[in-house]
């Protein structure tokens, strides 16, 4: 019996492949993940909390992070009116840390989103088309992987000028080569799968097959890569800020609050520098935890074979 593409565009062949795989609802998957990787589950919850804080920053923050500059209340210790004290310009540190969550997530997701999309497109194309393009792309990836990305990011920020968008673009460079390599190898492996070749021989277009089967293969590892890298990007923004090239003041990025100027106050007003540092490290730690847990679950190689 010939397998034709049914009206809905999904060939009977695909349905067969779909049905063979045991169906698990999303809830079951989450429960399974939580039981097997408690640390991962906790970090996922913390990150959702963080996203909420970032979203409702105006509500949570007690002051305007930029405009509320009261010279008289300069460098005050944490108190009931200022939970985390005030900085050298008399601004409320707690509000700045809360808004900082928003900015760090923005720069993180901007860089990772951009990097993943660009990386996937280039990776799939170079994997799918192969030939000269693939060779050049591979060499560029080698160079980018070989290049200390903080210097590349720095050069881009110096070139484009320091703004949240530009810092995001510069930091997306960190993940592009890795995503290209990942999606390219997935494309290549999908292209060689027997069932793909079989499907092609009976008329299904290779591109549709590659796209239909590339995503599930790549999304897993890319998602793991992205979660881990998100933390890395936020730390990198702090690195750039240390060099004076991070998201420019007065916007309260956590990295910015740790830069050269602020560090002079480490002893006189430790709260001004310690709290953003803790916030930043905690978020990056949580992202890394989630990435680590996902890697153990999603990375097929790591699943211990039951003998």
């Amino acid at each position: 019996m010939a397998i034709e593409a049914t009206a809905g565009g999904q060939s009977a062949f695909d349905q067969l492949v779909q049905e063979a795989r045991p169906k698990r609802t999303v809830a079951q998957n989450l429960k399974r993940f939580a039981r097997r990787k408690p640390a991962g589950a906790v970090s996922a919850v913390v990150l959702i909390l963080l996203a909420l804080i970032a979203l409702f920053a105006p509500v949570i923050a007690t002051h305007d992070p930029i405009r509320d500059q009261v010279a008289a209340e300069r460098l005050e210790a944490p108190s009931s009116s200022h939970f985390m004290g005030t900085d050298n310009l008399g601004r409320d540190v707690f509000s700045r840390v809360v808004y900082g969550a928003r900015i760090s997530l923005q720069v993180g997701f901007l860089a990772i989103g951009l990097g993943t999309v660009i990386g996937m497109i280039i990776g799939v194309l170079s994997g799918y088309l192969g030939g000269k393009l693939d060779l050049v792309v591979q060499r560029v990836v080698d160079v980018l992987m070989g290049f200390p990305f903080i210097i590349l990011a720095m050069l881009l920020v110096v070139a484009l000028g320091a703004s949240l968008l530009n810092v995001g673009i510069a930091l997306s460079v960190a993940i592009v080569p890795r995503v290209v390599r990942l999606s390219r190898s997935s494309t290549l492996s999908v292209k060689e799968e027997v069932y793909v070749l079989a499907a092609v021989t009976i008329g299904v277009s290779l591109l549709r097959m590659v796209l239909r089967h590339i995503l599930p293969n790549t999304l897993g590892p890319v998602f793991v890569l992205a979660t881990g890298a998100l933390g890395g990007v936020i730390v990198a923004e702090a690195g750039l800020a240390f060099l004076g090239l991070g998201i420019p003041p007065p916007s309260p990025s956590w990295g910015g609050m740790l830069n050269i100027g602020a560090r002079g106050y480490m002893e006189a007003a430790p709260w001004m520098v310690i709290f953003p540092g803790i916030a930043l490290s905690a978020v990056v730690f949580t992202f890394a935890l989630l990435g680590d847990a996902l890697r153990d679950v999603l990375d097929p190689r790591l699943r211990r074979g039951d003998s």
Partner: protein
Amino acid sequence: MMMEEKSRYGGIANFSTRADPPLGWDPMRSGSISVLMPAGSIFGMGNMIRQCPDDGTAVCPGVATEWSSNDDRTSWTFTLRDDVYWHDGVKLTAADVKFWLDMAVFGVTVGENSRRPVSWNFARWVESVEAPDDLTVVINLKSAVFDFDQLLAVDNQIIAHPRHLMQPEIDAGNVNVSPLDVGLVALGPFYLEEYRPGSVAKMRRFDQYYKTDEDGNQLPYLDGIDFYITPDPSGMDTAFRTGRLDATARGSGFQLTPEREAAILSTLGTERVTILEMAQSSFWALAFNTLREGPLQDVRVRQAIHLWLDRPELVQVTFGGFGKMTGMFDPDTAWANPGLMETPGWNPATKDADRQQAKALLAEAGYPDGFDAEFMCRRLWGFVCEPLVGQLEDLGINIDLQLVDDATRAARTLEGSYDMVMSGPTLALPSQYGSITSSAGTSATADPKHNDAKVDDFFVRLASAGSVEERIEIAQEMERYVAVEQAYGAWLYTENTHTVVREYVKGIQVPIDNYRRNLDFATVWLDK
């Protein structure tokens, strides 16, 4: 003359500098503290004459003993000492000084590569230089300058270019030869023993140094100075607090804030630390661009900003109180406009009234609820610009703060692509006429943008003023016109430099007016 009961001689001081001296340590190419701080001990300060250590406005002898001008002050004659030697033992002659003056004033051209003349102030007046004999130098001027000696005596105009070593290089075509290229051989109290870029420059005592102290003892007292390169302020503070350094570096970003000073005192205690307070003698101003379409073309808007800004609060917030409000000149010197600090804009007592008037002026000019403005600021000065943003936003001006690096800043200054720019610290009168034109006049490189010929006219009159009193009078008239009447900028404050030395470091001549002076450290000794 009996020696002090305790000999001042001996010991090596561990000082700090914030970076490797750029541009081959060449004072002709950079007057930055990064050059002068370590180089001062090798080059010595000034040239034939220099600013007096304790009074910047007075002139003291350098390698010359006497100097005088002819009647109409168009030709100046200097008599050199005959006991001055380069560090490699070669004697200093008038020909060396002529070589140095010619290079600075006229530059050097060999074949098609040429060296730029130096933008030092005295250079613009020099017609020609002669060295009739080994110990006499005559400088002929294009026109009369009654205080030419004051112009020549500026501390960072340093003879650091040995003719016997540089001439061969220049003849061979290397016109941009720098002191570093020829091993930093110079005339100062110390010679360079070892320079490891990025880590340390070791200077050792030059026994044939020509200067002595008031009691006739041969200078310098120290056996040597090690200048450690500490590129990070926190790293420097740490080293000072654990006794690795005897002094902290000067320069923006490195001079102490109250908090860092308190941290140092908390570790070492006040009895083991001496705080040196020096003025930066340079003035921060918020310069406006009146050539660009927009609210700032209206003088009422500019005056409103001038009245609104609370200078004392800015000093408190930006420098933690280490500074004072000023106009275009240091209020504690003879140049200050009498009573200016009590006038609206500066006077803290009338601040509330001034702010009401500022709001009124804005409304009158047609901007009752403010306007948008692009505020360009050098990245390194982010900490200075942020507080300003806060105050301007309270006035209702929506500020787009743009932190840029030096290249972009220089480019946009030429194009005038900003509404406001943070200007300073630029040296004001009296020593640097050049910078005045660039800081307030209509030249392309000036920060405040306007085409008001009247301002340029002030500078012409200043340059040809007959006496110091006349010059002060013209300067004050200009200040009232530029800073108040037209408010081409809002002159704000000056930061005074706080650095610290260990209690046993004695004999540092603290330059009250400009921290880039008295860096030869010849009189420094260690009391331990």
